[in-house]
């Protein structure tokens, strides 16, 4: 009887431990993009994105802990102006140059989280460090949307999020064109990830 009671308690603990174990999710590069918008000449907003992003999310919903590491290919920047028929340098080529993202020298933009901030059960924001052009600065990603659950068609477990932050590009040494091209840049990241 005591042995059965002990076995029951032990199995409950084991089940609890399994529920609390952090899960690693691999970012789905096909459905995850960092996008940005920036004021141009004070006249309009230019929008663009990076086409290549990879990384991992480790998340333990029970313990409310986890981490995010994302690597973005700087050379994949795209604003819809990649090649011009007249042979002149395109905006995307200019963005890849030393004036902006300097992709030849700093091929990756990296974000590593340091802390997940919950409001109740809802993941509200993520604190972390963004490294761009060799400079690392702390930023806080706000999460207007964060959800984990089964994929509606395949029923595979997955997590998805939208994240936002506004940064000053001069904080990272990207000074070209300021103020004609705004210093403040709005980053919007949509991310979907599946268990490893």
């Amino acid at each position, binding site marked *: 009887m005591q042995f059965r009671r002990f076995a029951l308690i032990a199995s409950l603990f084991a089940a609890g431990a399994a529920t609390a174990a952090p899960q690693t999710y691999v970012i789905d590069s096909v459905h995850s993009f960092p996008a940005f918008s920036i004021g141009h000449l004070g006249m309009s907003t230019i929008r663009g994105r990076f086409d290549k992003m990879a990384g991992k999310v480790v998340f333990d919903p029970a313990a409310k802990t986890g981490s995010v590491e994302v690597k973005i290919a700087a050379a994949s920047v795209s604003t819809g102006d990649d090649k011009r028929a007249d042979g002149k340098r395109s905006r995307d080529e200019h963005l890849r140059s030393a*004036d902006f993202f300097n992709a030849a*020298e700093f091929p990756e933009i990296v974000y590593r989280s340091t802390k997940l901030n919950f409001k109740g059960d809802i993941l509200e924001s993520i604190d972390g460090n963004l490294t761009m052009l060799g400079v690392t600065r702390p930023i806080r990603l706000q999460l207007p949307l964060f959800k984990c659950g089964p994929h509606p068609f395949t029923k595979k477990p997955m997590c998805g999020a939208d994240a936002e932050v506004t940064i000053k590009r001069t904080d990272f040494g990207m000074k070209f064109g300021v103020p004609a091209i705004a210093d403040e840049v709005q980053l919007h990241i949509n991310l979907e990830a599946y268990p490893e």
Partner: protein
Amino acid sequence: MNELLDHPAVQGGVAPFVAGLLFALVTGRRAPGLAIVAGFAVAVGLALGWQLLPLSSTRKLVWVGVVCAFVVLVQSFLGGGNKKWRAVSALGAAAAVIWVLLGVLQQRETAFALGAGLAAAAFVGALVTTAPNEHDPRAPSMAALVILGWSAGALALLGASASLALLAIATGAAAAAVLLLALVGLRISEDMRNLALPVCVLAGSVACVSSVTGAVPWFALLPLLAVTWMPRLRRIYRGPAVLEAGLGFVLSAVPAGVSIALAFFFPHAV
């Protein structure tokens, strides 16, 4: 005032010209090369800011400019005719451009990195070695240095980065300031190498960075080596200094034009 200082023509042209003029007035008799470094420094301050870290290739160029200031000072006491000094300058310039490009070359395959590094070192070393010297006519020599700076800037603008272009154009603008003072009769040092060293190193390095990181094909840089040879057509330069300078501009512009045309018509993929 801020709007004016934000304008690229001021950052890369007017301000470096004025800085070059002021420094040449003070140091032109002894170390005219300091006028070039002053123009370069003003462009750095206005366009990039004086953060010296992180060490990107552009920031390393800034450091190279700082070192050039010390080198031209030392050279002003040693004299440009010292053969050992000339060899050391060329080797130092070659090492400097490899250091500038190191971060970029480390991202590439080994064979490309070795080839590009050695080629860049040879190019800048050759520019410094063949730079105008005290035996070459002064006005055409200074005109050639102006064209060298401006053509390196044009290559950077065509294929790489406006920031790099500003830095190279600034060296040409400062050289133009020294030429102007020489033409109005101010006594400028006979040591042409002192003036030429910072232009050759900085403009040459900008051209190399534009090729390795941008769309400028490597063969577009080769005609620039002929720019510093144009003052050696000594028989052509006969007449007042203004005429010599004008002729120097025209002749130096020929290989510079070829270089720019090659970069324009044959860009390589970035």
